[in-house]
């Protein structure tokens, strides 16, 4: 009589305690007595903090009304932001002209979508539009000309100014940074020294001192009578500052490329600029995209520093609002609002960079 089973025993499902919700809970929350205590304490803290935040911003908050008297002050008083929303978005830009900014946003959004998204394969024309044509359109649209009323930059402000500062500085910093990075790796000692000097000097000092320098010393450096307005001075400071950081990011990308790439290009008879433009830079920039986005996030956050040299960006407008005597005591609401706006932008960008990194990696990742 055969006691050995001839057919294979059907595979059993794993024990109930290791699968599904219960298994997940056991593994992730209650794996040991210490972990259980940690879970209970952490859950309590998280619940308290989350509840307090939601209660403050939504449940007990006031949304309706027009004056401070409409605030019950149990939670946030968003009436304050609502009343000043126009200023928060556009600064002192004349109300009748605000459509120009909105048009600019729409045109920019279209350009960004075309360049960044997956749907358009050939990026040549969208890139040309976004980096060459769009800035020219924006200049006339925002500043004036061609029959549009001129709006002085002193009237620019709010989120609009924040976006202008960030996008113009990155627009200048990226090419300048690439040139500096190439210069730093150049075999010509003089060029290398000038680039290293610039990069290291700027990176060693705080942005504020660069902004101070731009706002106090730029007028001294220029011939008498020539005077830039405040915004341009801030832009010069921010662009130079971010160019130094961008240069280091690009240098990292350049260093990551094996030397064989340059040698191969040279052996094919390509000149320096052809090698760089066609072979090296495309690869180096692709490697450094996450760091470039990170630098841009840093730059975007740093635009708030123009508050110190007296420009009215998003933060300054809200800060000025909290000091209005009709709205005293609403500092928390103001800063929480600014924090949420910046968080949405920065977090969105960092997610995008992660997505892009995954999309672009061509299988060389370890």
């Amino acid at each position, binding site marked *: 009589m055969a006691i050995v089973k001839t057919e294979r025993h059907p595979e059993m499902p794993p024990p109930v305690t290791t699968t599904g919700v219960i298994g997940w809970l056991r593994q992730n929350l209650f794996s040991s007595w210490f972990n259980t205590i940690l879970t209970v304490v952490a859950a309590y803290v998280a619940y308290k903090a989350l509840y307090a935040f939601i209660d403050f911003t939504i449940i007990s908050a006031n949304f309706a009304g027009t004056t401070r008297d409409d605030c019950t002050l149990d939670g946030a008083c968003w009436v304050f932001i609502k009343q000043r929303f126009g200023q928060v978005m556009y600064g002192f830009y004349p109300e009748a002209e605000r459509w120009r900014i909105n048009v600019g946003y729409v045109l920019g959004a279209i350009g960004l979508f075309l360049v960044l998204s997956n749907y358009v394969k050939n990026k040549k024309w969208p890139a040309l539009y976004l980096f060459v044509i769009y800035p020219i359109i924006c200049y006339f649209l925002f500043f004036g000309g061609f029959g549009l009323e001129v709006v002085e930059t002193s009237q620019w402000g709010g989120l609009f100014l924040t976006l202008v500062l960030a996008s113009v500085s990155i627009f200048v910093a990226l090419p300048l940074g690439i040139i500096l990075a190439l210069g730093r790796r150049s075999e*010509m000692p003089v060029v290398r020294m000038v680039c290293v000097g610039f990069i290291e000097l700027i990176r060693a000092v*705080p942005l*504020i001192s660069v902004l101070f320098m731009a706002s106090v*010393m730029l007028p001294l450096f220029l011939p*008498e009578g020539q005077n830039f307005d405040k915004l341009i001075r801030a832009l010069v400071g921010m662009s130079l500052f971010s160019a130094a950081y961008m240069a280091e990011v690009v240098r990292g990308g350049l260093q990551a490329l094996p030397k064989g790439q340059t040698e191969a290009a*040279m052996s094919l008879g390509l000149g320096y600029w052809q090698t760089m433009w066609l072979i090296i830079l495309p690869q180096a920039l692709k490697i450094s995209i996450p760091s470039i986005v990170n630098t841009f996030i840093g730059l975007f*956050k740093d635009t708030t520093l123009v508050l110190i040299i007296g420009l009215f960006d998003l933060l300054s407008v809200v800060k000025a609002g909290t000091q209005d005597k009709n709205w005293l005591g609403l500092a928390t609401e103001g800063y929480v609002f600014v924090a949420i706006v910046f968080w949405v932008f920065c977090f969105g960008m960092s997610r995008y960079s992660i997505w892009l990194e995954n999309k672009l990696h061509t299988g060389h990742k370890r």
Partner: protein
Amino acid sequence: MTADVPGMSEGAKVSPFRDPKIRALFFQVLVIVTFLAFVYYIADNTITNLEKRGIASGFDFLSQNSGFDIGIVLLVDYNAQTSTHGDVLLIGIINTLAVSLSGIVLATIIGFVFGVLRLSNNWIVNRIAYVYIEVVRNIPLLVQLLFWYLAVLLELPKVRDSVKLGDSVAINNRGFYFPSIVPDSGFWLIPTAFVLGIIATVFVSKWAHKRQDETGQQFPVFTTGLALIIGLPVLAALVSGIPFALEYPSMGRFNIAGGWVIKPEFMALFLGLSIYTGGFIAEIVRSGINAVSHGQTEAANSLGIKPSVTMRLIIIPQALRVIIPPLTSQFLNLTKNSSLATAIGYSEIVAIFAGTSLNQTGQAIEIIALTMLFYLTISLIISVFMNWYNKRIALVER
């Protein structure tokens, strides 16, 4: 570009414009000439402008009387009537260093704690750390500083309604009050004992290392060191009959008098910088620990080493190699970011020297140059120190 391109070697006749060596030389001369012309243009304009405004150049202003009050003065005496702009510079430097050093310590602690929590197996703990990191990293530091200062610390109760912990600690919107130590004669024993404790700990740890190398026996260095560093000063205090008195902050009519106070400006900057930088350090620590191969943990487990010891003696030392270089940049960032104090009225170098002194004297060039020189020096010192440390812990290969 290297000069030895095939076809352009010595034998071949090449037009001088296509010779890389000559081109490089030409290009460099061009860069030098442009650079010098640029410097000359700026210097010329600046001199003309300064002459027109009647501002004398030079550093004489440093010995001129400053004539303004400074909110927070540490360690030195300052008086608006007698002190000079040189003193202002000194106070600015001291205040910057004070907030940067204390911020670096707290930020490192926060960063390591959240970096490790971020790797916890416990889902909730892990998520809390993730939310902390993503929130603080994605909100501008200046917003956070203003929030801490204007929305939290200045909204604390007024002096009359101070939050008190017994007699010793009082918290209100003018600061955090603690008892201060008033030394009697013989107080010098305590700091001396403290220094002796540190020196003794260094020796004990060296001796313990040597003994472990020779005999394999371990010695509880950490507890011994702790006992020495804390115990010796306590012992000294007891032996010499407690040579100091505590001065408690006491409620005056308008303000709290006596005791030791941390002003809200310092507190806001300290908290803001540490919490913000802590978020970045946490990510650095996390990626550093992740960079250590999991096989190391498994090997340690299979040897029967306790998890806490595995972390301390096997994982962290290897992770440090990845962590130290970016950590250095964070320390530098924190120091540079202390300049944001300008916005909340903490008296550091940019606020009082590059701000008030500059406005009063108009010596823009000298003042900005000195300020930048200060930051350059700090950056250099921190990087030299961290590079030394980095080299010390780096993996020694054959």
